[in-house]
């Protein structure tokens, strides 16, 4: 999948991270792996971008973190809180409305080309 414009990704990184945690709690490396497996290299989210977002969401109460011991090392898992779920729904709704708006603008624009 072709990579998206960095600005487009930047404005949606929080929503993308929240979405990655929707099905189950994950740790940082696992989140990046999940995103790469779903979107290939299209969402070029790095560890340096991911962790500040995770900590911001944790401070905001949108995710709750807990340490769990793995086979070789301890990992910090992040899970959506009810507040995080509400935030994800709101973001998704906003995104869909924005997407519909852009589409409604693009269709006639493209038709006139």
């Amino acid at each position, binding site marked *: 999948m072709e990579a998206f414009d960095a600005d487009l990704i930047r404005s949606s990184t929080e929503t993308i991270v929240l979405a990655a945690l929707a099905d189950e709690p994950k*740790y940082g*490396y696992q989140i990046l792996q999940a995103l790469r497996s779903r979107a290939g290299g299209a969402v070029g989210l*790095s*560890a*340096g971008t991911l*962790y*500040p977002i995770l900590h911001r969401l944790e401070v905001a109460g949108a995710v709750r973190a807990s340490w769990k011991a793995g086979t070789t090392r*301890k990992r*910090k898992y992040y899970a959506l809180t009810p507040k995080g779920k509400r935030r994800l729904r709101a973001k998704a709704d906003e995104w869909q409305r924005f997407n519909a708006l852009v589409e409604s603008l693009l269709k006639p624009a493209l038709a006139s080309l």
Partner: protein
Amino acid sequence: MSEPEFERYLEDVAARLRLPPHRKDEIREEFRAHLDEHWAAIAASGGERPQRIRQVLDDFGPSDRLAAAVARPYHRRAWRIVGLVAASLMMAFLLQMRLRGPGPAGSHGRWSTERTGPALAGGTLSFLGEVVGVLGGTPEVEAPGFEAFKFRLPAVSFEEEPLEDVLAHFREISGVNIWVNWAELQAVGIDGDTPVSMQLEDVSLGRLLDLLCAGIGEGGGLIAFGYGDNVIEISTPNTLRSPQPELGTVQAVYDVRAIIEAAVTRRMSSVREFSSAVKNSQFSWFADVETGIAKEIQGLIAESVAPDTWQLNGGPGSIEYFAGLLVVRAPAVTQARVADLVEQLGKQLAPQSGRASAGGAGRTPPAGSTMTDAPDMPASDSAGLFTAGTDEAKPPRKPAKAEKRPKHKGAAESGTRPEGDRDEDL
């Protein structure tokens, strides 16, 4: 132990994190786990070690940028907490100012909790709830019978006792002047030998007289009592020379600022609610809390003190709240109970407050305490002091062994009120 390059990188990140040590350790642990896992994942991919190390570290980016980005939300939270504390202190201060209001004239702008207003004429009211002034009335008007009616008797026990003995007992124990118009009473078939049965505990003199008048004769209503010039008069309703205490309302202003302040402070201890209010700039929250508490006090009075008296329940009495003051219009006997309730609230909520406990120790009339006559209470309001509380806990007709008391033949005797607990709770 991770790769040495990773450890150096983590040291560098930690050194740049301006966070508490435990937070630094946690972040370092989290990043180390990520680096190690990433390193393990690309181990099989081949390539030179330095390139693989570079690949893993590049995913995190420069240490200074990462440290700043990770620490930022914690710094913001810290500032938010500082802001909350500052805002809470400011709001508490403003609330305090709002409740206290400006000091008396001549106080040179100082905020003061001093009471204002003239002293009560005669100095007989011991309004422990602090009646602080008069709104729109002529000051220095004594509430008729207030002090006499609020006198509390710990227990009375009569069984078929002669009315004359009963009244003599009231007179003797309370020290209140009681005058009986026997001639008028005899005209309706009541005399000194008319039997009286009552058994009550912790009852006010006003309530006792009310029950007595209601219980004598067929269906009651044959006799009534009034108060004037320091004498309780008992006669028939039509021949009563003194005004009946239930007929006139008096207006009193109770200072409940200390109670509200104490209650607001309690509410503010609910940190979550308070923080949420400040965070969301809901500064009206404080005003809402104050108003809410004032309404609760009004409701408490309306429910527990002579419920039939209040407009809320269809009566003529009123309780209004304004800037930390309760303006109450009710019969004198009811005012006595309101004062008692306000005092109790003050003792419970703000025991250390001078305002809440004013007059409590010495039971002295507060300077500035006063009431005004407002004679618009209908005669039907016999609730007043006499319809709520423990007074009604036991009906008067319950037979019990009578206490023997000396007979008093004098009709207009004056007594000296006993020292001590004369202003007992109503």
